[in-house]
């Protein structure tokens, strides 16, 4: 059987086939996670926001006008949820990265990467977005340039600055320890 297109899967979802949505989740989870992670800079929150994005996508499928535009539409949902998350956090409605009360069943990040994760979280968003899109979503710099509406050269500049800033943040942390 041929791989189903987004349109096919969305059609099936709209007809009540939940399994079809699984195909879309598998297809785009990495990308949505990258968007959320790039925006909020925190893995735990990014996971929650990814889940919320897909859930909202499912329950609001009727709002999607063009089935071929599923991912861009999902991206808008993800971005809006992230912005909402920031607003709520500002109002103190959500706490950032609470230590889990129970042992976290999720795959853990190795200790050497914990600092890196924290440093990525501290990057300003204009540097974090290209960095996460490049490394976590495996996008080309051309693709990122188009997504962020900037010149490809600027993506490289930002990637350089992001790496430099990460290095600075990590050495700063080492200095403190």
């Amino acid at each position, binding site marked *: 059987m041929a791989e*189903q297109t987004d349109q096919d899967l969305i059609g099936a979802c709209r007809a009540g086939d939940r399994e079809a949505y699984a195909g879309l989740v598998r297809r785009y989870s990495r990308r949505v996670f990258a968007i959320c992670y790039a925006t909020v800079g925190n893995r735990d929150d990014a*996971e929650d926001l990814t889940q919320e994005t*897909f859930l909202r996508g499912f329950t609001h499928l009727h709002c999607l006008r063009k089935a071929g535009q599923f991912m861009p539409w999902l991206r808008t949902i993800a971005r809006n949820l992230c912005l909402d998350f920031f607003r709520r956090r500002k109002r103190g409605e959500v706490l950032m990265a609470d230590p889990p009360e129970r042992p976290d069943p*999720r795959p853990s990040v190795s200790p050497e990467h914990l600092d890196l994760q924290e440093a990525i979280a501290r990057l300003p968003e204009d540097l974090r977005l290209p960095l996460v899109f490049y490394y976590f979503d495996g996008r080309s710099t051309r693709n990122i340039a188009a997504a962020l509406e900037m010149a490809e050269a600027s993506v490289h500049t930002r990637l350089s600055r992001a*790496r430099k800033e990460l290095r600075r943040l990590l050495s700063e942390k080492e200095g403190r320890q």
Partner: protein
Amino acid sequence: MTHPCSEREEQISMLLSNDLSDETRTDLEQHLGRCAACRDYLMAVREDDRRLMAFADQMSPVVARLESRVLETVSRSRSPKLEPTIQTTLLWRIIMKNRFAGFAVAASVVLFVATAVFLSGPKTLYAQTLKALEKARTVHAVGKDKRDGQWQQNAEVWYERGVGVVEQENVRGQIVTRIDNGQYQWKHLGGTSSAMKTRSADPDAMGVVARLLNLSELRERFSSGPVGAKTVDGVECKVYSRSDPEGGWRMDVWLDGDMRIRGWEKFRKTAGGDWEAYQTASVEYDLPIEKSRFAPDFGPGVTVIDTVVEGDKYWENRYDLKNALYTQEAFGLIFAVHQVKRCEGGLVFLTTSIRPTTETLRELGPIDSTRGAGSLVYGDFQLDSSWERLPDGTERLYQPWTLAELIHNGLQVKWSILIPKGSWPETVNECRLSAYIRTRSKLQEKLEKAGAQWYQRFRPLVTLPLPETTVSLSGVISSVYAEAQQIEPVAGHILLLRAGRPQTDPKIEGSWVTPLVKPSQIPPDQWEKECRTELEHLRGL
């Protein structure tokens, strides 16, 4: 760490992502040979790169687990609301397991109405209509659109229980025919010289009923009782109606005394507030249909290509290595050039491919393109610019442009045009081809683990003689389109025609990517127009 030369910082970043032009790359490499600060910086950036890559890899299980979490939540959530006007067509697609959107429209002539009624009114109406349809021995339906004030037939469907279904649709002036006997499907696009035989797209044919019964939750509001009467082809019918919440759209369905759907009509509101019909369908039952109607005969000169019998051999034969103009084995992959054409304006047209070797497949297993996840290839390639500096100091290069791409069970085929730039003589008799070949997925992992090289820029890879005859760009574009059309029924999900389109709506995210389309989604003339726009754009870069 010492600071790199400021003008080189960005170039070093570009070096890592292979985004440098050959000229700048050579220049940078020469600079790195002289400048220790930049060398140190490159090493530091490489280390950052490695660390970030490793961290990103660690996220893979996170994402995998996240997928399960999302799916669990979705399975517990309420059902999505439905867009009624879209829903029926989509339902048909699921019902018939039809993968091709174009045909869904044709087929929906019959079932558009069926689903609309089934999913709507009270259960009794639903059940009765369903039963009536099940009993049908044959169905013949015709769909019409109103264009420029005139009704024009856009689709016709014949169905006979136990025999099969024939769908014909007018897609932008081209007649698309699909015949399905429950075991095999034949698809022919009007004006082309071949038809494709594949496995049936709708093995259940009219087994719509059982599936619909499970979809009762999708019921939409249809009038619970008839709102009027109408005579259709001399048969007295009752009219059921529904309209969208904003009242700008209405659909009437006509059911005969046996509760069989005799037709429907869709209306929209005019500026003056009147209802104007714009789409209609009429349905006839149990009329004899000539058996020849279901025969996969598409007229003289049309050859049926049997992809069922040929299986993977079909692909091997279509893009075979034996007749390739050139092959190069590297890293467990085989790169091949199948076609080279001299095209007007110094352009060079190429059909190239890459596939895993038999040994790679034996070791790492075959790739099944139908799987939703996982890599579709063990390796891919990019044609390179073959940049050269000439003895007189001028330079010349090719800008590669991919027109279309096919990925099927690990085989990747690209149809490309090389655009000459810089200083070229009036007549060129050979093409110096360079390519960047890289492994992916398990093959890449295997080579990386072994510390072996897993990618390489071959510059040049081969010098190919150009044929004496020059072909037109239009000819090339239309031949790629025709080939894509022919392949689509077999590999429609992965054959991608790339067309450059100027971004029209900056608000639509995603419009920045070069859109990937199937031939059925774009008429040939529009594609050619877009190709020419893209070519102009690329020439101007």
